[in-house]
């Protein structure tokens, strides 16, 4: 085997084909499926463990404290300590809780979160299933997460958890629409719902600059809207009112302890990685390198590097911005992000039909910047003079 950059890039498909040579012909489909799925099942929970450490250290440094530093050098063994704690903690279920639904809710969440990785292309020729309607599959699976959140909150039969679940479900369904609309722009431009072909269309270079969709006016706005919606979908700060510890104790997973709580944590972070992975696939060029002279680095390294950058951005935003109130959150969704997503679609259509050159850059940027500025001003002005009325407390 000659050690070229091509070999390093394709090391995983080559290893899979070599391992499949040992399997008898009858069991080939099953073995192929297992060999495709097992690396994802190992890699992303490992990334989850690393992210918990990164988050606690990062947030600690942003808040002018050290973060965990006792378990191992620089606190690097903290995820192992967390795992041991959550596995050995007593599993308390309230007596009045609905035991079957209480048990099934974290399982549904983790199953849905893992299913979403089936359509993400992690490297060149490294996707589990190349579905024709891959992006639609991703959003269909993402919409089952809301049901599991409701199941968790309702089955605990406690007022805090039900309130947290209602808020979380309302937030998730409100932000699902801008997420889908921001994706439709990419689908329009790429002409396909398959994630593999969307990445293939972004893998070319003009000179040294890549063809990523984020380097267009509608691509940048779409990326920003998608990341706002993804932050809200994963219930992360600044949209974590349903699970903020200072607001509603822990929202819909108050009554969960031990391993089930760890499963909820895992499911939430896996959902965050999956939506980041989809953002990378749609906007940031998937596994392609940012400059053509860097293309010798393997494709999966670029995917995970971009994923780590997005995770660092999530942690940074969590440490920086204050939490949004529920009505501010819903206002942002319906009165700012949704109109901007619709205008983005219009501008992407105009981009497609104008001839290439600086003219379409100017026109499209102006058409996007004007509503953005006007909407922000309108919302700010409305809030200044708005008297807060309480609809049910009088």
């Amino acid at each position, binding site marked *: 085997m000659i050690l070229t950059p091509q070999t390093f890039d394709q090391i995983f498909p080559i290893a899979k084909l070599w391992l499949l040579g040992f399997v008898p012909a009858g069991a080939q489909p099953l073995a192929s499926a297992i060999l495709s799925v097992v690396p994802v099942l190992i890699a992303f929970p490992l990334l989850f463990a690393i992210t918990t450490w990164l988050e606690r250290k990062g947030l600690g440094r942003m808040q002018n404290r050290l973060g965990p530093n006792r378990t191992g050098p620089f606190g690097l063994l903290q995820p192992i300590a967390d795992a041991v704690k959550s596995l050995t903690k007593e599993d308390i279920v309230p007596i009045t809780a609905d035991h079957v639904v209480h048990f099934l809710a974290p399982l549904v969440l983790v199953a849905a979160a893992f299913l979403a990785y089936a359509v993400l292309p992690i490297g060149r020729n490294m996707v589990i299933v190349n579905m024709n*309607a891959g992006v639609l599959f991703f959003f269909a699976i993402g*919409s089952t997460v809301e049901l599991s959140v409701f199941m968790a909150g*309702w089955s605990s039969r406690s007022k805090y958890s039900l309130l947290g679940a*209602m808020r979380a479900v309302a937030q998730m369904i409100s932000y699902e629409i801008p997420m889908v609309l921001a994706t439709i722009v990419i689908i329009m431009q790429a002409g396909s719902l398959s994630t593999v072909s969307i990445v293939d269309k972004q893998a070319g270079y003009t000179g040294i600059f890549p063809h990523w969709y984020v380097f267009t006016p509608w691509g940048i706005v779409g990326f920003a809207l998608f990341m706002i919606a993804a932050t809200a979908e994963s219930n992360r700060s600044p949209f974590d009112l349903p699970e903020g510890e200072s607001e509603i104790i822990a929202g819909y997973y108050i009554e969960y302890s031990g391993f089930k709580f760890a499963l909820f944590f895992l499911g939430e972070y896996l959902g965050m990685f999956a939506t980041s992975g989809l953002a990378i696939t749609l906007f940031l060029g998937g596994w392609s390198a940012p400059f053509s002279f860097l293309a010798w680095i393997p494709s999966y390294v670029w995917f995970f590097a971009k994923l780590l950058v997005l995770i660092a951005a999530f942690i940074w935003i969590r440490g920086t911005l204050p939490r949004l109130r529920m009505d501010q959150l819903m206002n942002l969704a319906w009165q700012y992000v949704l109109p901007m997503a619709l205008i983005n679609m219009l501008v992407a259509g105009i981009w497609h039909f104008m001839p290439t050159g600086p003219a379409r850059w100017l026109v499209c940027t102006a058409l996007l910047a004007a509503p953005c500025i006007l909407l922000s001003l309108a919302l700010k002005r409305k809030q200044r003079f708005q008297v807060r009325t309480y609809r049910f407390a009088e």
Partner: protein
Amino acid sequence: MTVSFLILAVLTVAGMAAAMGLRNAVHCVLALTVGFAGVAALYLQLGAQFVGFTQIMVYVGAVAILAVFAIMMTHSPTPVQLPAYSSRWAWGIVVAAAVFSVLAWAIRSGTASSQVLPPQPDIDVQQIGEALMHRFVLPLEIMGLLLTAALIGAVVIAMDRKEEPK
């Protein structure tokens, strides 16, 4: 009648029967979700992937949540234990059984049981998009109008009006 069809059929019928039979309304909706997922899996087995994923997204992701929210909002604060079934439930069962027997007899005696299975049609989303834009553009526009009217109508009907002075 492959094994996968039997498993999915049993799962779907069990879910839907539980959805219509259980006492607790939220349990009914959760069983209904299982039934919807089973129907989506049957669509995938028939080769209609777009419809299957749309079924999951619309029914499991939207209609089930809508039903659950409605149950939460119409929950009476004093837990009055109503009987789950109407007082004339026997007639309902009789009518449903009659409908099923007529349909089953029609199916068994009607369709020409041709043993030659047509090949699995390989359609992709582009063809569905083209069909929507060319042959079915009028239903598409009417559907947009209908969804807008339904959205506005549902919000107006369900809105809590507090204009009357107390």
